[in-house]
Structures are given as C-alpha cells and as structure tokens.
C-alpha cells in the first residue's frame, strides 16, 4: 500500500481511539462536578462517595484521552507535512490556543482534584473539578474550530502559495462550528449520562447499594433524556446546513445519485458505486427533501450533478466520497440516536411512575446500551471525515496533495501497526480497569488505599 492510504488509515485509527475516550470526559466531568457541588452544599456524604466513585472511572478514562491525544497533535506534521505547510497559518492557531487555554487548565486542575481531597477546602476542591469540566469542553471548542476549517474554510485568503488567516473571529464564528460544537458536546453529555445510567441499572438490578445508585441514576436520567433529544435536533439543523455547505457529503449520506424535486428518504439501500445507482432501496417519498429543505417539494442535488459541477469548478477528477460507508455510517448514527431516545424516555416514564426498578427489561436495556452512544459517536465522525473525501480541506486541498513526501510507506506502516496494537492494548486494559472499579462498587471508593505489604517485589528480581 502507498503512504497516502496508510496515512489515512493511521489518522482514522488513532482518531477513533481518541474519540472513544473524549466524549465520556466531556460529560462525566460535568456530572462529577455536579455531584461534588451537591455534597459541598448539603453535606450529604453519599454525594461525596458518588463524586469519588464516578470520579475514579472518569480519571481512568481521562488517562487514555490524554495518551491518545498526544499522537493527534503530532500527526499533522509527521504524516501530513504538506497540509501543515499549506494551512498551518490558519489551522495551527486554534491548536496552539487549545493547548494554552484548555489543556493546561484541564491537566493542572485534574492533578489538583485527584491529589487534593484532604489538602484543599471543600469549595476549592469542587471548583477544581468544575475547571476540569470547563477546560475539557473548551478544548473541544478549539479542536472543532480547527476541524471546521477543514470542513468549511472561512476567514482566509490563498496567498504566497498557502492559506493565510485574515480574520480570526470568522474562524470562531464559522457556521460549521456553531452546529458541530453543540452537536459534539451534547453527544458527550449523552454518552456520560447513559454510562452512568447503565452502570446504575446494573446495581439496581442486583438491588445492591440502591440509595447510591438511585441518586446517581436520578442525576443522569434528565441529562440523558434532554441531551439525546437536543443532539438529534442540532444534528438535524447541522444536516440542513451541510446540504448547502457540503452538498456532496449529504448526497452521499443519502445515496442520492440523481437530483430530485421530491427527493425520497432512503431508509436502507443496496448501493452500486460503479454503476452509480441503487439496485434496491426502501424509501419514503418526499421525506428526503423535507428533511433537507423543509418542504416536500424542494430540489435536492444528487451526486452526479454535484460531481459535474465540481469537475467544472475544480478541474477534472473524482469528487465522490465512498458512498456506501458514508450512507451506512449516517444510518448507524441516527438509528443509535433513535434507540437511545426511546430508551431514555421510557426510563423517564417508568421513573416518574416510580416503577422503574420493577422493570428489569428496561434496566437491562440500559445496561447493554452503554456502548450505543460510542457507536453513534464513531459513526458520526466517520460520516464527517470520510464524507469530506477527497478533500482534506473542503474545496482547497485534496488528501493526496497533503501527505508528507519524505515519509516512506514502510515508515507509515510501522507506525500504523504499532499505534494500532499499542493503543488497542491500552484501551483494553483501560476497559478492564473500569470494569474492575465498577465491580468493586462504591464502598471501595471511600476506603483509604488498601494496606500495603512493606516488602514489595524488587524490580530487579
């Protein structure tokens, strides 16, 4: 395989790993902060125990977010040097600000929070987890500002053979980021809420520690229900915006080959990318148009027309992303979202009736649905990034122009294999440690660290 394809694989693999850990960080930091705040204000020890138990899971998860994140920052220079030269003037700035404004705050105060339980006044300790929560979400904002430039370049001019920034404020108010930021952050909150609900459901099923897990559940439930609703609503408007800003991505996401006055919504389809047609599709007529432009009789451009228009605008070439995976990732994301929506509102219904704990099926569904938000998050990024192909910066630079010319395919293959295995192994270990903490339950979280044997095993023996 050539270096380009391997570099793309590497970015995909490491990004997916990274984003397995980020969403939980975004949401769980806030939930833990709320728990500790309740403890500080009411003095109720259960909430302190909650902050410690969920906080322990938060920290284990956070560690992987950090180590997978280091790779991400160095990637651009290592594998995509020509991209870095071409857009560094614009793209480097939000990354640098992310480190300066968010990473420092996040890492420093997480250290304070972990080690400061008995060294700081209660309020200050609670404030430090709030700062971690704020900084995590702030860092999401800056990285999405950077990503949004790749999706919808704004505030620049092409000069001296590269994109140069002309308006920093335009980057921050990029229409793309105004949709993408709430969509991503709400997805993170929902991920965390379903994580807390799922684990709480596990304990409620076993009727162990009911008070602790009822309170945890009650905290997470409204967050989950509201955020899953909002994330889908924002996603809808984001889709409508993309129809205008990245029509090719959305046409591929719908597998809509021909422009149509009354575009159908394909629920499922068999896609033949060679013949550029769908041999089989189950669809609802007119709904595609309605979702895209708010009317059942609105024109939606199809892939073939957009391709022709792009070939005229950007010169000959293939501007069609891989349609099948983009189409299906979109469906996976939406289906996962709908499932979570149903789940959250049925849980809410039974909770309000006071009968949730008599409904083992709902509790089991909540437990087994812990991975579902992760699936939706991954599919969403898949849609965003693969749907942008062949561009690395939409309309400005193609991936093949962006890859490092001096890095050999062998070098990329080596690093790809090692990163995949190493991060995979660490992710597995991380999952195992979280599983253990959950199994041990909340009593452990309050106990002092287990008594140590004074004689350890020496490293040298």
């Amino acid at each position, binding site marked *: 395989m050539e270096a380009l394809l391997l570099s793309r694989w590497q970015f995909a693999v490491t990004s997916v790993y990274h984003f397995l850990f980020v969403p939980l960080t975004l949401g769980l930091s806030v939930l833990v902060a709320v728990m500790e705040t309740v403890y500080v204000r009411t003095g109720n020890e259960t909430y302190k125990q909650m902050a410690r138990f969920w906080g322990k899971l938060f920290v284990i998860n956070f560690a992987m977010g950090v180590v997978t994140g280091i790779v991400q920052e160095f990637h651009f220079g290592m594998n995509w040097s020509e991209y870095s030269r071409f857009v560094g003037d614009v793209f480097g*700035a939000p990354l640098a600000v992310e480190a300066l404004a968010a990473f420092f705050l996040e890492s420093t105060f997480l250290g304070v929070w972990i080690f400061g339980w008995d060294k700081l006044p209660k309020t200050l300790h609670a404030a430090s987890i709030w700062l971690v929560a704020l900084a995590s979400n702030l860092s999401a904002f800056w990285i999405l500002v950077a990503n949004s430039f790749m999706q919808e370049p704004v505030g620049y001019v092409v000069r001296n053979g590269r994109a140069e920034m002309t308006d920093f404020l335009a980057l921050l108010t990029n229409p793309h980021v105004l949709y993408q930021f709430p969509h991503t952050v709400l997805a993170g909150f929902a991920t965390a809420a379903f994580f807390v609900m799922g684990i709480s459901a596990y304990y409620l099923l076993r009727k162990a520690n009911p008070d602790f897990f009822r309170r945890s559940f009650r905290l997470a439930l409204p967050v989950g229900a509201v955020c899953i609703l909002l994330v889908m609503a924002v996603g809808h408007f984001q889709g409508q915006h993309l129809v205008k800003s990245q029509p090719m991505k959305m046409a591929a996401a719908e597998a809509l080959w021909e422009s149509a006055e009354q575009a159908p919504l394909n629920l499922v389809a068999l896609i033949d990318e060679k013949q550029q047609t769908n041999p089989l599709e189950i669809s609802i007529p007119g709904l595609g148009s309605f979702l895209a432009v708010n009317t059942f009789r609105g024109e939606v451009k199809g892939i073939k027309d957009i391709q022709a228009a792009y070939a005229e605008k950007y010169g000959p070439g293939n501007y069609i992303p891989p349609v099948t995976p983009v189409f299906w990732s979109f469906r996976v994301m939406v289906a996962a979202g709908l499932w979570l929506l149903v789940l959250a509102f049925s849980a809410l219904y039974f909770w309000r009736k006071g009968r949730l704990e008599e409904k083992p099926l709902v509790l089991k569904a909540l437990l087994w649905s812990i991975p579902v938000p992760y699936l939706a998050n991954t599919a969403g990024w898949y849609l965003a990034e693969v749907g942008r192909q062949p561009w690395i910066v939409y309309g400005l630079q193609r991936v093949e122009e962006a890859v490092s010319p001096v890095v050999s395919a062998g070098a990329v293959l080596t690093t790809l294999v090692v990163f995949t295995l190493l991060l995979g192994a660490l992710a597995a270990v991380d999952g195992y440690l979280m599983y253990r903490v959950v199994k041990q339950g909340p009593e452990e979280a309050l106990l*002092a660290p287990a008594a140590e044997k004074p004689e*350890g095993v020496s490293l040298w023996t």
Partner: protein
Amino acid sequence: MDLNVLWFILIAVLFTGYFFLEGFDYGVGILLPFLGRSDIERRVLLNSIGPFWDGNEVWLLTAGGAIFAAFPHWYATLFSGFYLALFLMLVALIGRGAALEFRSKDDRPFWRSLWDWVMFGGSLVPALLWGVAVTNLVQGVPINGQMQYTGTFFDLLSPYTLAGGLAILLLFAFHGALFLTLKTEEDLAARSRSLGLKLGVLAVGALFLLVVLSYLQTDVMDRAGTALLFWGAGTALLAACGFLRAGRCGWAFVSSGLAIVFTTAAFFGGLFPRVMVSSLHPEWSLTVYNAASSPYTLKVMTVIALTLVPVVLLYQGWTYWVFRRRVSARRLEY
C-alpha cells in the same frame, strides 16, 4: 523586535519550561528502579510527581502547537523529517502516561513491575531523544531547497548527538534526584541525596563533553552570548553539586534547574535566527522568517499568548505550593 523574533523566544521559553519541569519528572521515572526498593517506595516516588506530571507535559504540547501556529514550515519539516525519532518518543510518552495511571490500580506484582518498567523506559527515551534532537537542530541535518528533510533516522545519530542525548539524560536524572530529596522522607530522601551526588559528577562530565563537542562540531559558540550561557550552565551544575554536598537540597534543585535553563537557552541562542540548520547549503536552512506564519497570524497569537501564559504560570505555580509537602507513605493515590 519583530514578532518572528518574539515567537522564537516564546518557543524557546516553552521548551525551557518543559525541560525544567518534565526534566525532574522524567528523572524520577528514570530513577524509579534504582531508588524504589519496595512497592511502597516506588509508589511514593510516583506520587511525588503525581499532581504535576500531566500539567508539565502540556508544556511540550503547547510548544508543539506554538511551532505549528507560528512556524508551520518548521513544524512540517521537523516532524516529517524526524519521523521515527518522534514516533519512538510518542510511544514512550503514551506508555508513560498509561503506566502512571494504571500501575497502582491492580496489586499483582507482575502487573506493577510491568508498568514500572514502562515508566522507566517511557522516561528514559524522551530524555535521551530530546538531547539528540536539539543537537541535531544546531549541528544541521540534510534539508534541501524545498525545505524537505532528505536523510534517514540513522543520519540523526552521531557521536555528537549521542553525547547530547547522554548529557540531557544525566541532567534530567540528576534534577530528578534533587527533586526527590525535597519531596520524600527519611531514608528515601537520604538515598536520593547520595545517588544525586554520584549523578552530579556524571552530569558535569557529560555536560563538559557536550560543550566541547558543540564547540568543535557546530557554530553555536561563535556567538559570545551562547558561550557565556554554557559557562553559566556549567557553573550552575557545579554549584548544584556543591549545595547537595553541603546538604542544601533546595538550593541544589534550583541550581540544577538553572543548569537546564542555561543549556536550553544556549542552544536556542546559538540556533537563532535559524530554526533548523541545513547541512547541505546554508541558504536552505529554515529561519524565523522563511518558516513563519503571516504577520496577521503572529499578531493574533501574540495577543493570546501574552494574555494566557502569565495566567498559566500563576495557577501552575499555585499547585506546587498546594502540594509543597513531602509525600507520605500513608496517603497515596497512585
């Protein structure tokens, strides 16, 4: 002073901060198998850097981000050129971060010893590689007229650059031992001190070798300021040894920190106005001008950096004050 120069200085400051701060926590990692005789001792060692290491590492991330934003060509040439070296560093840093968080979350001896070794390697490799990287920057590497690195990984290794790696490694180990004399109690502190006395001698020797080779191999000493900074580094390092012998561990730590600061400043001073020296043709070197971002970007970034850096220094400094006490074996998180 134009903004290109200011950003060169800012990046030098970020690297200096990174070497000063992560210098001691890499040092602690390197000394882990030598000083930690029992599991509890190794936990104390890890807890001594527990609240700090992650925040310290952000200095590197920020330096990387700053290079990207202010000098995109430097970022592109350096990271794609030093590909395998950076890859090794990333693997080390990934392992190290995981080791710190994972190690004490399971109590099987095999598990703990595995992560202890990962911690050791994950601290040793970056320390060594940074010495190699910095000496390569000033010595020059094959960069062509298109700003592309044309060498291989093995072109980065030479007696001079390996001497650079060794010197930085020993400096960090020494700095780490001095940090431990301040953060641990009784027996462990005493052993850190006696190990520090030996490491100090080795560090002085390695730094001397590095300075002599820098004089012979590069043009950094052509500038009087650089030569002076190297003298300052040597003096500070000798002072650190002297203070340690006299039992003034706090002053010794400050002095070893100064030695790191002066050494870093000397290399960046000798490099300026270049950011990467081309060994093929002097005209092909990357400089603060031909590698830089546009004036607008530099201006925006200057405003942001000058606002935020003091705030960061303030709250990071505050955490060192919060956790100023020695680490007690009775209350351990890691």
